[in-house]
């Protein structure tokens, strides 16, 4: 799978590379210049050599004084790209590396700034860190809400993206005030929110982290913007886009690898999306698919250079509360994840599927969710809202939810110390069963490979092993943006990231 990812590039990887070199902005129809430039290069010489050589060759030949002008001229059809050879290629490659390394160094600087601010303001005093969502659609409405949430006790602010952004094959530009059920991820929105939270961090004496989503068709670009603007966590799952958004599997694995290399470099903690398996399938029956997905996410993350402390592997409290022993089963699943990944800051996600609109019952359910989080030492706790499935959270909903979390953490936060379920009890027995089912599923995936010749995982995804959705590698959105690399493919960004160098 990794080899497959290494053998291909995508339009979004190439656009991310141009963004590292400093190309931003969009035309009057809000089509980003990176899209224009990559499309024109692709038209003239194809994508398989990467855009770096043709683009910096054109700059060297004096077609334009800078990247933005080049993109503008290219959009108007005033530039023809060629694939440089020999000395021209060497020189273009060098110039590209110089330009792109500036972006990489910006990411390095932002990481150092984060470290400095954490040293100055400090990390949250308690574990798990409290993660709250903001989603108004309007960045200027989000900012005061995020600041208020931080003052009320949130350690991490996640700005939910507008529904549908994952299927856009471009990153919108500028500060945005229109979004459905969320706010667009744009570089300017990232910058505005981070600046506001820096102010609040100073006021509170606690570094407040900012989260967004590196998923969908523009995963590499959004990861890059996150690195450049010092976001602290990104949702980034290895298979979510394939299974739940019907994005082409190869596109996803290529994009994912690049985005994770960026996250590794930027010191960003990724959050994976295992909760989705449980909202679409039965949380007891599908428990082992969560474990399998966590193991896969861990593998792909480490391969891309992420360290254990950067792996916010996901899981969720989604068992039907009318199932007997549902709380004990939740404890078993949460404890299994905790034990399998002792050094990862697991992300624990609240009930959504069984939140019925009965807010009073929902408040109790969230309390039990918080209790599992406290008893099993989760790293990141996404605060559950009693108004889940009713309205987007009100100010008062958030306050009540935080009171719930605080009460449980204060009252039972130390329970991890005392909580050692006996080996033959229901909790441990159940955990062992889920682990065994997970291993069986992995074995099934490996055995599957021999028939098709495709990588085992690709074959498994194709025949519906995960989430019962069949996603063959020849189908799905974004496939036309994938190209197999030709000999001589050059991308200084991936070189700099793989080598760990900054020049």
């Amino acid at each position: 799978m990794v080899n497959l990812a290494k053998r291909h590039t995508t339009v979004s990887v190439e656009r991310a590379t141009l963004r590292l070199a400093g190309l931003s902005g969009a035309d009057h129809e809000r089509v980003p210049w990176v899209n224009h430039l990559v499309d024109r290069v692709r038209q003239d010489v194809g994508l398989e050599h990467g855009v770096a050589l043709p683009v910096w060759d054109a700059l060297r030949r004096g077609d334009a004084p800078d990247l933005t002008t080049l993109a503008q001229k290219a959009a108007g059809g005033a530039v023809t790209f060629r694939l440089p050879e020999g000395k021209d290629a060497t020189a273009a490659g060098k110039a590209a590396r110089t330009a792109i390394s500036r972006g990489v160094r910006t990411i390095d600087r932002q990481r150092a700034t984060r470290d400095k601010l954490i040293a100055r303001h400090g990390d949250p005093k308690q574990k798990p860190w409290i993660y709250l969502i903001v989603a108004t659609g309007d960045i200027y409405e989000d900012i005061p809400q995020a600041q208020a949430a931080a003052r009320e006790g949130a350690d991490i602010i996640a700005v939910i993206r507008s529904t549908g952004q994952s299927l856009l094959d471009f990153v919108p530009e500028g500060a945005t005030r229109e979004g459905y059920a969320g706010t667009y991820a744009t570089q300017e929105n990232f910058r505005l929110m981070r600046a506001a939270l820096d102010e609040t961090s100073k006021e509170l004496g606690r570094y407040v982290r900012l989260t967004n989503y590196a998923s969908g068709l523009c995963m590499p670009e959004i990861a890059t913007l996150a690195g450049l603007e010092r976001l602290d966590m990104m949702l980034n799952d290895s298979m979510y886009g394939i299974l739940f958004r019907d994005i082409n599997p190869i596109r996803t694995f290529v994009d994912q690898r690049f985005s994770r290399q960026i996250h590794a470099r930027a010191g960003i903690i990724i959050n994976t999306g295992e909760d989705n398996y449980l909202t679409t399938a039965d949380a007891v029956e599908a428990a082992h698919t969560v474990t399998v997905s966590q193991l896969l996410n861990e593998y792909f993350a480490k391969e891309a250079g992420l360290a254990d402390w950067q792996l916010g592997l996901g899981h969720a409290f989604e068992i039907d509360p009318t199932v007997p022993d549902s709380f004990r089963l939740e404890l078993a699943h949460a404890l299994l994840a905790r034990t399998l990944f002792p050094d990862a800051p697991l992300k624990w996600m609240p009930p959504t599927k069984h939140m019925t609109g009965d807010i009073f019952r929902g408040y109790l359910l969230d309390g039990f969710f918080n209790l599992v989080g406290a008893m099993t030492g989760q790293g990141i706790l996404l605060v559950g809202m009693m108004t889940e499935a009713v309205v987007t959270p009100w100010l008062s909903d958030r306050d009540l939810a935080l009171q719930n979390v605080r009460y449980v953490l204060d009252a039972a936060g130390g329970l991890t110390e005392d909580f050692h379920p006996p080996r033959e009890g229901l909790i441990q027995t159940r955990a062992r069963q889920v682990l065994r089912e997970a291993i069986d599923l992995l074995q099934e995936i490996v055995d599957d490979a021999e028939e098709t010749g495709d990588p085992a995982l690709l074959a498994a995804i194709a025949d519906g092993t995960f989430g019962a959705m069949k996603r063959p590698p020849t189908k799905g959105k974004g496939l036309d943006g994938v190209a197999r690399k030709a000999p001589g493919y050059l991308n200084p960004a991936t070189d700099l990231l793989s080598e760990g160098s900054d020049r």
Partner: protein
Amino acid sequence: MNPPPRTEAQETRNKSRQHVGQRRMEDALPGELSLHEESPLVRPYGDTTGDGMVQISFTLPVPHDKRAEGAALQLAAKMGMSPAILVHAKSIAPSFTFFVVYGAVTHLVDLREVEVVERDFDVLSARDTNALIRKRLRRKLVVVGACIGTDAHTVGIDAILNIKGFAGEKGLEYYREMAVHNLGAQVPIPELVNAAHDLRADAVLVSQVVTQKDAHIHNTTAMSAAFREAFPAGKVPLLIVGGPRFEEGSAKELGVDRIFGRGTTPGEVASYLVHAMIERPKGKSA
């Protein structure tokens, strides 16, 4: 920041009890709510028939002080709560206060004036549904389902279509005499129209969960308009939308044949399809 004075709250509560007691005697007038016979006029029930007790909670954008508490009681009074008891007030941000208010409402509800969309078809078993389709339609009933627009919440459509189903009932995919095509999430409307056309859909099921800025209304009207434009009159497939926030009586307004709300089961949808397609074929009004 102070909790409401305990004694004051207690006092108000006592007053309320007396008040309710008095009013209940007044209520025994002819035509008014009576405690001893079933009446079409009802009041909310706290712990005594006719006490009219309700609870509400809300936030006012003012700092917590005596004035804020007065404002909360004023709002409660304007909402018809008399007397209102402020049981909880808490500052939740520098200039916001959260309130919980209990009290008796002065309003009566007249059950005779309530309009309900009664189900106008019988709910059939999967077996009867299949048999009816086989006997009367003599081909498979083609169903196309999708979440349209930017909505990515497939929970609803999946509950109705997937074999797994919902509330212990198997989904439409389980029905042998139905050919079900679930197009999934975020399907653009033109794509849905084309798919319905190519698959010769008898019915199109659309689920809409996201309601921010009335997205569900806009998407639904856009969808029904697109279908009316693409199909000749009388040939438009049955258009059915489902979601937790639709008003059940608004089908005509939205240009669809039927709206299903929260808690709808696959069996109900299947029965409706049979009812609409076979027992009362669509062409009738065209």
